[in-house]
């Protein structure tokens, strides 16, 4: 069967404009949720090694909850559920300021924070306990010993799963289309609906996600290499 491909009509007005907007939307959603996930993930992982049993159990419960519930359910819960618990003024502010982007970032960020937390925790476990004791005996506080001694090594050790989860987070932003968030998959599907150029539309989406994912992995390799301490 011959397939008559026509990418030109997809990349012309008004679709091109929508694709560029979608690119920015996906970038903003990825950046916001990644930042939330990484910062929270590192903090949570640190809480697990403070020595407090209740903190350790609390974080473990959070991780179990976030990892056991599908991302789509998290998205709907935040967008249609938790959003209605806000005071009326806050709700109307959020609705007027791209509520889809805000709630999707929170839902994806919180869910992925559990994965980043576990990545960092596995890195922490790779560091011998003696280092913590040595740092503390030098007079560093717990926070300082974590900041200057333990975490730099732990994060270095956890780079491969860290990059992997960054790519997964990026791909999962496509689920936000269910909330009406005009990210890349949403816009590609709209264009497909208008033009019936199914093959071209989804090829375009495939190339986009593939290129960005490979790019993220490439950046990850570069960062890992830079962080590496030359072995003696």
């Amino acid at each position, binding site marked *: 069967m011959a397939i008559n491909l026509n990418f030109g009509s997809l990349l012309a007005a008004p679709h091109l404009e929508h694709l560029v907007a979608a690119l920015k939307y996906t970038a903003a959603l990825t950046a916001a949720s990644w930042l939330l996930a990484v910062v929270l993930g590192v903090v949570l992982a640190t809480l697990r090694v403070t020595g407090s049993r209740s903190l350790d159990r609390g974080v473990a419960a959070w991780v179990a909850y976030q990892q056991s519930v599908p991302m789509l359910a998290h998205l709907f819960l935040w*967008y*249609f559920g938790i*959003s*209605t618990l806000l005071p009326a003024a806050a*709700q*109307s502010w959020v*609705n007027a300021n791209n*509520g*889809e982007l805000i709630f999707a970032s929170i839902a994806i960020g919180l869910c992925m924070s559990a994965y980043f937390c576990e990545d960092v925790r596995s890195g922490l476990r790779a560091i011998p306990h003696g280092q913590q004791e040595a740092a503390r005996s030098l007079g560093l506080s717990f926070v300082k010993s974590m900041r200057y001694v333990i975490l730099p090594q732990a994060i270095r050790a956890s780079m491969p799963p860290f990059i992997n989860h960054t790519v997964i987070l990026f791909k999962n932003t496509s689920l936000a289309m*269910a*909330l*009406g968030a*005009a990210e890349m998959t*949403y816009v590609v*599907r*709209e264009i497909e*609906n*208008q033009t019936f150029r199914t093959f071209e539309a989804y090829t375009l989406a495939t190339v986009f996600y593939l290129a960005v994912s490979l790019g993220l992995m490439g950046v990850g390799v570069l960062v890992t290499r830079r962080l590496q301490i030359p072995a003696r």
Partner: protein
Amino acid sequence: MKLFKLFSSLTIAAVSAAVPLAHADQLGDVKARGALTCGVVSTLEPFAFQDASTRDVVGYDVDFCRAVAKHLGVKAELKVVSLEARIPELTQGRVDLLAAVLGYNPARAEQIAFSKAYFVSNQSIAAKKGALKHRDDLAGKRVASIKGSSNIPLTLKVLPTAQIVSYDDAPSAFTALVQGKVDGYVLSESLMRRFIAKLGSDANIEVLAPPVGRESWGLGVRKGEAAFEKAVDDALDAMEKSGEAQQIFDKWLGARTIYQMRRDFKIEKISG
């Protein structure tokens, strides 16, 4: 005698089977059989749906079928058809008339003939009560729709600056409207009114005028049956005149139903 009876019934069977094929007159055939077979759907309240207590298919479409049959002087027979197969059921002669939520469009009009419009469906925008007065107040505002819906181009034609936010299904989009996540929601008016009715007495959603688009529904008739088509149109005209058409509308969609709709059309020729 027995043989004669068998022979005559066979003849009648042969003649009635041959009639549609031999492009004779469907009107005569229906009258000879004494029955009009209508294709109806059975899943779309209030147009055609199964009554929970009697298990009969009832509704706006069913009443129109029964009324047309009465005007032709025959009894009505219902045959439940699916939305996808309704046009083939008619063209292949398994039903005489389609009363099956059938909206007019040029592609369908190439396959079958349409009677005069017996219902006009409005595609309308609903909004929070009091927030907006007129459809065009939604210029530049967020309007919800369903992904891939034909309402999207219709809305953008009258409101080019509206920001369309598409959800996966009708209930999600309605929830977004109720929660104030969008300013309006575009849907067929009867479906919208069902959603509003489900909210109960404190519903604060209203349908804005005018609609963004209108779709005329006709009864479907096989092509090339001019006499039958005219008889159906005459029956519809008579129903309009006698007020019967209005009565059926009021019974299923009027002020005393959950739909609270006003009849803003008359039975008339659909202008393609």
